[in-house]
C-alpha cells in the first residue's frame, strides 16, 4: 500500500511541473500586467516596481528563479497586497474554505447516501423516483441560483437564518454548506443508487436472504460495503472540487475564504498569487485523489491483499 502511495506521489512531480509551467506561460502571455491599473502611473514608478519584483528580467530567468522558490515552499510576495506573501494569504483564507468544504461534504454524504440507498431498495417505485428526480434537479440547479433562493426564503421571508457571514452569528454556516453541498449530494445519490443496485442483484445477497438475515443487516452489512465503493472513489475529486469551487458560495455569503482571493488575483494579474493558488489546488487534488484511491483499495479485501503483497 505504501509503495503504491509513494509511486503515485512520484508520478505527481511531473504533473505539478506541467501545471506550473503551463500556468506560468499563460499568466505571462495574458495582456496587461499587475501594475497596469486604470490610474496612470509614471513610467519610472512602474519600472521601479517591476525591478523590485524581478519583472524586468528575461522570462526564462523569472521562471527558473520562481521554480527554485516553489521547491522551497515559497510562493513569493503578492503583487497586489503589498507587504504580504502568497503563503500568508493562502493561510488566511484556508480555514473558512476548508470548514465550508467539510460541512458541504457532510451534507452531500448524508443526503446523497441515504437517498441513493433508499432508492435502490425499491427500484422503480415512488421511493426511487422521488429522490432521484430531486437529485436530477440538484445537479441542474447552479449554486448561484440555489444560494440566493435559500437566502430569499430562509433569510428574508422566514427570517430563520442569517443571510451572510461566517462564524459571526449562530446558524450562518448552514445555508452556505447546503448551497455548496447540494450538487454533490445529488451526484452521490446517483452513484450510491447505481452501486447498491449492482450489489443487491449479486448472488451473495440472495445467500444472505436465504440465511434468514433481516433486511437491515442485508442492506447495512452485506450490501453497503461493496455498493458504496463508487462513492468512496468519488470523494477525492469531490473534496478537491469543493475546495476549489467554493468561490460562488463565498461571494454570495460574504465568506472570507480562498475562492475570492483566487478570482481577484486573476483580474488583477497578480502573477504570484495566481500561480501559488493554482499549485496549491493542484497539489490538493492530487492528494485527495490518492487518499480516496487508497481508501477504495483498503475497503476491498482482495485489493488490500494484493497491495499488501506488493510491499
Amino acid at each position, binding site marked *: 500500500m505504501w509503495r503504491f502511495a509513494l509511486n503515485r506521489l512520484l508520478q505527481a512531480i511531473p504533473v505539478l511541473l506541467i501545471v506550473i509551467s503551463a500556468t506560468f506561460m499563460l499568466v505571462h502571455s495574458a495582456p496587461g500586467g499587475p501594475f497596469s491599473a486604470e490610474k496612470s502611473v509614471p513610467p519610472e514608478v512602474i519600472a521601479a516596481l517591476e525591478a523590485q519584483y524581478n519583472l524586468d528580467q528575461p522570462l526564462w530567468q523569472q521562471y527558473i528563479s520562481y521554480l527554485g522558490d516553489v521547491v522551497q515552499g515559497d510562493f513569493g510576495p503578492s503583487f497586489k497586497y503589498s507587504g504580504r506573501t502568497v503563503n500568508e494569504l493562502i493561510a488566511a483564507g484556508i480555514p473558512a474554505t476548508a470548514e465550508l468544504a467539510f460541512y458541504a461534504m457532510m451534507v452531500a454524504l448524508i443526503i446523497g447516501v441515504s437517498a441513493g440507498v433508499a432508492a435502490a431498495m425499491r427500484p422503480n417505485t415512488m421511493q426511487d423516483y422521488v429522490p432521484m428526480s430531486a437529485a436530477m434537479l440538484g445537479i441542474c440547479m447552479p449554486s448561484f441560483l440555489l444560494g440566493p433562493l435559500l437566502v430569499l426564503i430562509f433569510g428574508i421571508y422566514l427570517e430563520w437564518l442569517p443571510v451572510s457571514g461566517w462564524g459571526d452569528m449562530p446558524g450562518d454556516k448552514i445555508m452556505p454548506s447546503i448551497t455548496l453541498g447540494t450538487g454533490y449530494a445529488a451526484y452521490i445519490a446517483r452513484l450510491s443508487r447505481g452501486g447498491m443496485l449492482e450489489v443487491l442483484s*449479486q*448472488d*451473495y445477497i*440472495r*445467500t*444472505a*436472504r*436465504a*440465511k*434468514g*438475515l*433481516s433486511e437491515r*443487516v442485508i442492506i447495512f*452489512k*452485506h450490501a453497503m*460495503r*461493496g455498493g458504496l465503493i463508487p462513492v468512496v472513489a468519488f470523494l477525492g475529486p469531490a473534496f478537491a472540487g469543493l475546495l476549489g469551487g467554493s468561490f460562488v458560495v463565498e461571494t454570495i455569503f460574504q465568506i472570507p475564504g480562498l475562492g475570492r482571493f483566487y478570482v481577484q488575483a486573476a483580474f488583477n494579474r497578480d502573477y504570484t498569487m495566481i500561480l501559488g493558488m493554482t499549485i496549491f489546488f493542484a497539489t490538493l487534488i492530487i492528494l485527495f485523489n490518492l487518499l480516496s484511491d487508497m481508501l477504495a483499495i483498503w*475497503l*476491498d*479485501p*482482495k485489493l488490500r*491483499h*494484493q497491495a*499488501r*503483497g*506488493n510491499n
Partner: protein
Amino acid sequence: MALLEVNGLSIYFHSRNGVVKAVDDVSFTVDAGETLAIVGESGSGKSVTCYSLLDLLPKPPAKIEAGTALFDGIDLLSCDAAQMRRFRSNDIAMIFQDPMTSLNPFISIGEQLIEPLIYNEDKSARLSRSDARLRAIELLDEVGIIDSEQRFDCFPHEFSGGMRQRVMIAMALINEPRLLICDEPTTALDVTIQAQILALIKTLQQKRDVAVIFISHDLGVVAGIADKIIVMCEGTVREANDAEGIFYRTEDDYTKKLLAAIPEGAKVMPNRAQVDNPLIKVQNLKTYFRDYSTTPAGHIKAVDGVSLEIQRGEILGLVGESGSGKSTLGRSILQLAPITAGSIHFDSIELNKLSPAKLVPWRRKMQMIFQDPYASLNPRMTVYQTLAEPLLYHSLANAKNIDQQVQQLMDDVGLARINMRKYPHEFSGGQRQRIAIGRAIATKPELIIADEPVSALDVTIQAQILDLILNLVEKHNLTMMFISHDLSVVRYISDRVVVMNKGVIIETGDTEALWADPQQQYTRDLLAAIPLADPKSERLRRLSR
C-alpha cells in the same frame, strides 16, 4: 405426515412479452432423512420451484398462482416475512450453484458463517460471538477445512471453489436445519471435488437426519445420492419415481432422452490420426505469470516444462483440474498467452519466433472455441457480423459471396438461416455455442483448440454439441485439442489423452488404454471420481470406500 408437502404449485413470470409458465402444477413430498433429486434442463423450472419455497424469487416478475407448500403443516408460500425469516434461520437451508459468487467478497468467511447464529430471527436462540465462533470452527472441521481456526478470518478470495462450497455447506448446516436444498452444488466444480462434496453431503445428511432436495441437470450426478427422483420439463413433472425406477424401468421418452445424453463409453468414430506427422510440436514449454500476492518469488508457474505433439487429424484430449495449467497451455500454443521459455512448432514454423504481423496468416489456421458462449460472443454483433468478420478479415470472402458463405456456415453448425440477423442474447446456450463453433471454423483452420466447450451446457445440449464437433472434425479434416475437466466427455471425443496437474504432464496415452490401465495414482483418482449413472454400482462403490 411428510416434512415438506408441495401441492399443485404453479409459478408464472409476468413480463412485457407475456406470461411464462415457469412451474405448472408441481407436487411432491420429502420425508425427514430422505433425498429427493429434481432433474431437468435449464428452464425446466426446477430452480424456480425450490427458490419459491424460501421466497427467494424476484416478485415481480414471478408470481405464485396456485398451490401450497406445507412444511410441518405451515404453508411456506403464504406465511409472513418474519415467519419466513424464522424458517430460513432455523429449518430450511440452501446451497447454491456457484460458490465463487455466493459468498460476500467483502466479509470474512468466519463472520459470514456465524451470521445465522448471531442474527437468528428468534432472539432467544441467538448466540454470543465467541460461542458462535466455536460452533463455526467445529463445523468447518467437520466439512473438511484444514486449519479452520486460522482460516476463520480469511476472505472468500483466499479459498478455492471447492473450499468455498464446503464453507457454504457449513453455513447451511450451522443452525441444524431439517431440510437442505442444494441447487446444482457441484456443477461449477472439478470431478474430484464434486465427488468429495457429494460424499460430504451424503455423510452429513445421514449423521444429522436432514432431508435433502438436490437440483441437477445431470442424472448421472444424482444416481449415487437420490432416494427419489422427479424429472421436470418445461415447468411440469414428467416422471416421479424412486432412483432405481428412473434409471432401470423408465417408460417416459424425455427421461430416456436425458439418460441417453449422459456421455458414456468409448469414442464411436474411427481414429483419424496420422502416424508420425505432427501438426503441432511443443517443446519444453513454460508459461509463468507474474503475481506478487501468492508467492514470494512472484511467479505462478502455470505451465512448467510441457512437451507434446499433436498428429494431423488427431483429437487430443487434455484433462486436469482447475489450476492445472490446461487452459494456459492451449492459449500458449495459439500465441494468446506470452510464453516464458520453450518452443511451439506449427508444421515447420516456430510460432513463438514470429512477430505479431507475421503471425496473422497463421492465426487463420488455428482457432479457438471458448467455454462460456455467453461471454465469448460480442453482444452488439449479430450472428451474421460475427461469422462474416473473420471471413472478410482474412480475405476468404468478398462482398459478392459473403452472404452465401455465412449461410453455408450456419448450415454447417445447424442453425436456421432466418436467425442470421439476431443478436447473441436471443439464443439459448447451446445455440450460442453453435455460433462460436461457426466462428471458429469460418477461416477453414487446420487446428482448433476447444477449451471446455460443453462445460456450461446442459447434458442433452452437451451431447448434441459433441456430435456436431465430431462431425465437423471429420468433414473439414481438422486437428483438435479438446480441453476439459469432464473425463466422460473427453473419453467420448478423444483419440489420445494427456493428463495435466500443476503445470506438468502426468500421463499420456491412447484413450481406451489409459482408461483400462492408468499408470499414475493421480489419473486413477481422477477416473475414480467420475459419477456413475447407475444407482446400484454407485452404492457398491460407496460401500467399498
